[in-house]
């Protein structure tokens, strides 16, 4: 795979990823390349009898410059973020698939709340007996939504799980829209519905590949998660691949083959495809019985913190500062007690 150079900067609550690329003032890219097509490294190029042209070999090398732009290539799992989080939950899942461990294919929104979507091997997945309102769940595998969440209402029989987490996605859903399904096209039945579908498509035009979740179609194969192929069919959604989860728990993407149906009333959600794992059997910090996942020494620091806050409530600022100092000292001592011996300096490679 290609050698790349990235950098990041913060923008509000988001992180901006930029990639360095070579440009020349003549407007042409002057990157290293092979005289034969299909070879991206010097070794394979020369082994095939081609000539490797280095990036500095451009005739306009005196006007070459490097600049950072948005990433030029899609890379699956390309960013890795390491972060600290608050241990306000304990995962007690036994990893029993279908019992306290579940796989979801994507996330979306109903305009207010976060929704998770799934589908079986060839039919909708019934979640009604798996999740109850107020259950705590832990999400992993989703870059944005990883962490603790609470279920808002019982799982649906059509493969949708509604969470209490707020999520206002635009567009979110076309509810009870009447469509004609033919040749992998979901075509609005009336002009009004065609306009709704067109607006739905336009609002997600910025995405490289858009995904939808179809619910309540009369035929089982008309439901589920689909990628959209193009936007040229006015008033219609052209589905490309259907994503399913097979019996082994593998995610598969195969060409959609949707049975023709007329005047089918469906709901269509705008979703983001991610391979999400959901754990049940979560104990959340809600009452006195919760066991903190900290060492005894660190837990003592929590006692100092609580005492500091109580002093603050009583407007005893001296007491607050005293206990806060103890809290910080306790944490520092706890951290330094795990380091022994001299540090060594190493290179980057």
């Amino acid at each position: 795979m290609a050698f790349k150079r990235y950098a990041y900067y913060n923008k509000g609550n988001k992180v901006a990823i930029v990639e360095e690329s070579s440009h020349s003032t003549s407007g042409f890219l002057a990157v290293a390349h092979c005289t034969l097509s299909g070879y991206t490294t010097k070794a394979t190029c020369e082994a095939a009898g081609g000539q490797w042209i280095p990036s500095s070999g451009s005739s306009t090398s005196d006007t070459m410059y490097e600049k950072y732009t948005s990433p030029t290539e899609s890379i699956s799992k390309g960013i890795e973020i390491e972060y600290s989080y608050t241990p306000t939950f304990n995962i007690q899942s036994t990893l029993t698939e279908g019992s306290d461990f579940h796989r979801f294919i994507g996330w979306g929104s109903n305009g207010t709340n976060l929704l998770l979507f799934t589908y079986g091997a060839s039919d909708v997945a019934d979640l009604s007996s798996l999740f109850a309102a107020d259950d705590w769940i832990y999400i992993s595998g989703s870059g944005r939504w990883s962490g603790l969440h609470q279920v808002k209402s019982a799982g649906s029989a059509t493969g949708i799980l509604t969470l209490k987490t707020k999520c206002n996605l635009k567009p979110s859903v076309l509810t009870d829209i009447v469509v004609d399904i033919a040749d992998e096209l979901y075509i609005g039945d009336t002009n009004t519905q065609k306009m709704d579908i067109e607006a739905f498509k336009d609002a997600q035009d910025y995405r490289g590949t858009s995904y939808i979740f179809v619910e309540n179609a009369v035929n089982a194969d008309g439901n589920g998660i689909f990628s959209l192929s193009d936007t040229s069919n006015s008033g219609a959604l052209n589905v490309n691949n259907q994503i399913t989860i097979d019996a082994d728990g593998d995610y598969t993407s195969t060409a959609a083959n949707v049975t023709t149906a007329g005047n089918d009333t469906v709901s269509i959600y705008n979703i983001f495809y991610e391979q999400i794992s959901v754990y049940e059997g979560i104990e959340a910090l809600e009452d006195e019985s919760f066991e903190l996942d900290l060492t005894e020494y660190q837990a003592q620091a929590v006692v100092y913190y609580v005492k500091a806050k109580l002093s603050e409530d009583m407007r005893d600022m001296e007491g607050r500062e005293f206990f806060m100092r103890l809290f910080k000292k306790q944490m520092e001592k706890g951290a330094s007690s795990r380091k022994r011996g001299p540090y060594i300096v190493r290179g980057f490679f």
Partner: protein
Amino acid sequence: MKVVDIMERAGVVETGRAVIYIKEALEEIAMSSETHVETTRIDIEAGKRFYQLPNNAVKILDIRCKNHENGDSEYRSIPRSVYEPFTEDTDGI
């Protein structure tokens, strides 16, 4: 240690109040001592510059990218840019 033990040691009798203060303490600890660390991976999309940070992230410890300064599909730490690049993102998304 259980919440009830902390309540007894600190002399708090209201559970709700204790739970909120303990959550604050855990957040403060995550900020300064990083007792619990997790790693998550996000897809890079061509042309997409801005990515949402994980919802439960308290402190970002490292950002790594696949193939950064290597061709072996390794994840390596990427530097933070002091200034925003001159070339703006076309759609700001």
